[in-house]
């Protein structure tokens, strides 16, 4: 079959300083892979095309690149499966600097792997050279899932967190860290978990599943990160925002059967974390003004005792049924009250700040007539005011009620 390989190229030695796409038309067999195509180009058409590749059987991890926008190993991606109207787009892996064509700089990748101290640290004196450490086959099989990682960088290429924060350790290094935390022979679990608890560590993952989706070896890096979180909380590292968020969320489901959106942010940041609580106030005001008001009193689902029974049966870390019930209720009540109070004060201040003309300029009739409002830095305040002034919106409580009727 005839395939057009559209390859993103970049050569720092050439006069052209930006990358460009170059199309190569090659005749390939039905069973051919993207890598077969690239090798054919390199050997027969254009010797200047640079890429890394070696084993051709998905074990060396050299040839991760973006194929049709997604990170894959070129060697186990069959052309016939992904060709789209005769064309396949090949680009270098993402989140890493391009060295030349499809070759990217892996140094930050390896640095992060090194950062997790990726070596076994057993306890005690040197072991008997004729006796292995005893370990269950089950534990080894679990680790085999992670050790199957070939460090190809596909997960790092497509990680959504690394895209915004190069400081994040990333899925590959965190999965590698899990491999040691979960190894029964390793004695360093606590220091490891403590390090991974820091900024850039396990809690920065968004659980977006990109790494799970693109991993060519089924390593499930995200699942490993989740296991690290579980182990960290079980070990007693419960004061991070992430851990608090997780525990507060779970507790909300235990108590009410659903997310308690009012207490969740308060509990995540920490009840006595005044600075962070204050920082949340503007958002709270905006939410209140927009009518985004979750039920003030935690609303228990009908039949919640059944859900709680399931929790009591299965929640391994927390079998004290009502541990957080009182704080939740208090915070659930307190935070909206406080926020509403602050909202009113803020509104009053702003009313002084904006003269009556600017407010009147934002009356509903302006909106109805379709006049376009110029952007200002405070446009969201404008919107808030508009909603507040709009008689339709100010009746939003009514809508909530009719809503509740619909539910019934």
């Amino acid at each position: 079959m005839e395939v057009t390989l559209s390859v993103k190229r970049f050569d720092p030695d050439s006069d052209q300083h930006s990358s460009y796409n170059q199309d190569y038309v090659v005749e390939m067999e039905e069973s051919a892979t993207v890598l077969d195509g690239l090798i054919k180009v390199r050997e027969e058409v254009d010797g200047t095309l640079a890429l890394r590749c070696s084993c051709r059987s998905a074990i060396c991890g050299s040839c991760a690149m973006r194929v049709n926008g997604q990170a894959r190993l070129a060697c186990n991606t069959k052309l016939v499966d992904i060709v789209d109207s005769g064309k396949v787009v090949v680009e270098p892996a993402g989140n890493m600097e391009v060295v030349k064509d499809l070759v990217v700089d892996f140094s930050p990748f390896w640095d992060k792997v090194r950062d997790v101290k990726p070596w076994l640290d057993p306890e005690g004196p040197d072991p008997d050279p004729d006796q292995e450490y005893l370990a269950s086959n089950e534990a080894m099989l679990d680790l085999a899932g992670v050790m199957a990682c070939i460090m190809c960088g596909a997960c790092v290429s497509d990680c959504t967190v690394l895209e915004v924060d190069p400081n994040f350790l990333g899925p590959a290094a965190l999965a590698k860290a899990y491999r040691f935390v979960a190894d029964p022979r390793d004695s360093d679990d606590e220091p490891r978990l403590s390090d991974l608890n820091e900024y850039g560590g396990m809690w920065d993952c968004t659980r977006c599943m990109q790494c799970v989706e693109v991993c060519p070896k089924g390593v499930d890096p995200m699942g490993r990160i989740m296991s690290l979180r579980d182990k960290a909380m079980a070990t007693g590292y419960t004061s991070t925002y992430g851990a608090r968020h997780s525990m507060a969320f779970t507790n909300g489901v235990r108590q009410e059967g659903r997310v308690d959106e009012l207490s969740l942010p308060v509990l995540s940041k920490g009840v006595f974390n005044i600075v962070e609580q204050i920082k949340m106030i503007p958002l709270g005001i905006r939410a209140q003004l927009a009518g985004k008001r979750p039920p003030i009193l935690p609303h228990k689902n009908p039949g919640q005792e059944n859900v709680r029974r399931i929790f009591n049966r299965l929640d391994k870390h927390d079998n004290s049924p009502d541990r957080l019930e009182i704080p939740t209720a208090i915070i659930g009540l307190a935070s909206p009250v406080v926020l509403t109070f602050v909202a009113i004060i803020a509104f009053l201040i702003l009313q002084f700040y904006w003269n009556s003309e600017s407010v009147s300029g934002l009356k509903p009739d302006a909106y109805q007539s379709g006049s376009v409002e110029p952007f200002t830095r405070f446009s969201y305040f404008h919107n808030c005011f508009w909603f507040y002034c709009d008689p339709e919106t100010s009746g939003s409580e009514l809508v909530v009620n009719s809503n509740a009727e619909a539910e019934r």
Partner: protein
Amino acid sequence: MIDHDVLVIGAGLAGMRAALAASESGVDVAVISKVHPVRSHSNAAQGGINAALTDRGDPWEDHAFDTIKGSDYLADQNAVEVMCSEAGREVIAMEHMGVIFSRDDEGRLGTRAFGGQRQARTFFVADFTGQALLHVLYEQVLKVGVRTYEEWFVLSLIVEEGQCRGAIVMEIRTGDIHVIRAKAVILATGGLGRVFEPSTNALICTGDGMALAYREGVSLMDMEMVQYHPTTLKSNGALMSEGARGEGAYLINSDGERFMERYAPNMMELASRDVVSRSEQTEILEGRGVDGCVFLDCRHLGEKVINEKLSQISDLARDFANVDMSKQPVPIRPGMHYQMGGIKTDVDGCTSMRGLYAAGETACVSVHGGNRLGANSLLDTLVFGRRSGEHAANFARGVVERALNDGLIDRENRGIQAMMDRAGEGELFGSIRLDMGRTMNERLAVFRDDEGMRDAVSKLTELRNRFDSVAVTDKGKTFNTNLLFTLELGFMLDCAEAIALSGLERKESRGAHFRTDMPERDDKNWLKHILVSRGADGPIIENTPVIITQWEPQERKY
């Protein structure tokens, strides 16, 4: 100039094991590799690593005998004794470093059966044992802080006054050339599979170390012994692990007959690899194959076994042969897999040159002789990697540093510049490599004869002439793989020459070297190794007797 006590070239299992051992001996060690260490081809070893744990009822002598019988009595028995007696501790040392070997019910190391052996003594990690070992060794290298030069390519060895003093290298990313001075150099560059087309080997297996040594007049040994693996896919040469036959898969011909009954009635499909490959090729040549293949039949194993234990090869069969292994037999054929020969060393990795060591597939101790047993290659890399690292460290301590000759970099630069300056119309490396690979695969495969090997030798001369005018189209300095492949092709042509000449020299059939014109083993005249080296006037062929300790050669039956 960069300075180290011990320079290890190659970062696969042998290289990193050597580096660790040398580092533990307290000298300054560096590893240089043309790929990142975890990209090395040791990854590809699927099945496992052999070790007889004597204290658990499997005497190491039994393993040694299986190895020697497998080698068709060409292995040096003193070396086999070293390897097999040290195997248990080596495997346990790797376990202590963190390898997640499969366990038995009591939490101790578990084993599986492998070809050519009477005992289940293969330790394993699922179907990626090589990868599991390689990554753990890399972890250890990080732990002890051995300096690694990743993606640096060795252009030549520095030899002064008959002693190896370092290497001249190119940093691939920048194209810059450097001199690394070292008191001892260990070559651990792996195999030469790409000399053959097709091959199960990775694209990086270009025989660099063997060629580097050969060019300096160091002896290569047993180069005619090239292993063809019995089960590779036709479409892309991918390896279908011996694990499949270990789990009970059959080999059948076009009549559906388990033909191994006629060739190895006792061991059947688990006879040694040379025997099985030869049997398959005979079936194909006698008309009982289909499209140049016979079949690997896993249907009777059931979906559960296939999914759980053979998932990787089941995927390969589906992707590259369009076959569902649980419903249809997979067409397979013998494919080039391993080079038993290599740089001649003693049991401490010492080559014929002072200061130069070799370990792993690039070396020939010789423990594999005419045919390597499955799961002995990993063991070879670790035991002899460690021993050469220790010896090299000791040797380095006694070496007095001296200034190197001037102009080393200029010399290499001139050679490369000559290649780069050739007009773009010249032939590209790709077609020369392909012609070489096909010639070797036709003339030095499972069956060989005098005429075919002579033809190969003359074809190689012709290819070398073509190589002299090969063009490098990429004129840049950054990550110039075009230049790299051209340099590798030069190494491969040297290796091909050594293989063909050694093959012509051995006038008998033994192990993987089977001559249709001389089908019998001849212990009287050929119980010896063939050595080949390059002299001022071209290749020099010599030989040396096989070392026999306690196992007299017998007829080999499986």
